């Protein structure tokens, strides 16, 4: 069980980081989402894995560690807020640069085209 779980976290982290390192805003946002999934699962697992141990008093005999669950809940909400913000920022980038490159490449591309046009003439 633990190995499978560890591999899940590893995969999510690796996929997330690879996407975060891309050059366009959209994959970066997707990567951040994947990364936060991995991180949340990791944080959750700091309380170790429990089956049928919902931390609802009276529902079971052995309770899973509730603290990491609360922390992850907070982390999810904050992560959601942050994702929303960065998505909108990506939109602003698109609006301001007419391009979704993370470095806002509009001008360079435009000048490239202009240069080509001039040399063509």
């Amino acid at each position, binding site marked *: 069980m633990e190995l499978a779980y560890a591999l899940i976290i590893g995969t999510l982290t690796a996929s997330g980081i690879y996407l975060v390192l891309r050059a366009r805003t959209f994959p970066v946002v997707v990567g951040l989402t994947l990364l936060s999934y991995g991180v949340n699962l990791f944080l959750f697992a700091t309380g170790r894995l429990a*089956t*049928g141990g*919902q931390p*609802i008093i009276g*529902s*079971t005999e052995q309770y899973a560690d509730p603290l990491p669950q609360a922390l992850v809940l907070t982390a999810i909400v904050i992560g959601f807020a942050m994702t929303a913000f960065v998505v909108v920022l990506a939109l602003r980038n698109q609006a301001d640069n007419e391009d979704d490159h993370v470095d806002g490449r509009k001008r360079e591309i435009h000048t490239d085209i202009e240069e080509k046009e001039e040399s063509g003439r």
Partner: protein
Amino acid sequence: MITTALHITIAMVTLAVLLNVYRLIKGPDAPDRILALDTLYVNAIALIILLGIALGTRLYMEAALLIAVMGFVGTVAMAKYLKRGSVIE
């Protein structure tokens, strides 16, 4: 006997999940993928209910309800995107 039936059912639903994933990856068109995802949501509901039966708890029932709601909204949003581009306008 219920336990055996439960295990068989879980196995069948798990297999169904795999088939869904197959369609999701295979496509070939975007609506196929959304359809696969939608089905996956419904199968997830089944899995959660089965988990509740297996664990003898009803604490996951609301989670199942939530999957139903969220799966629907997700599907609608995706399908609308394909058709209309702007999901909210």
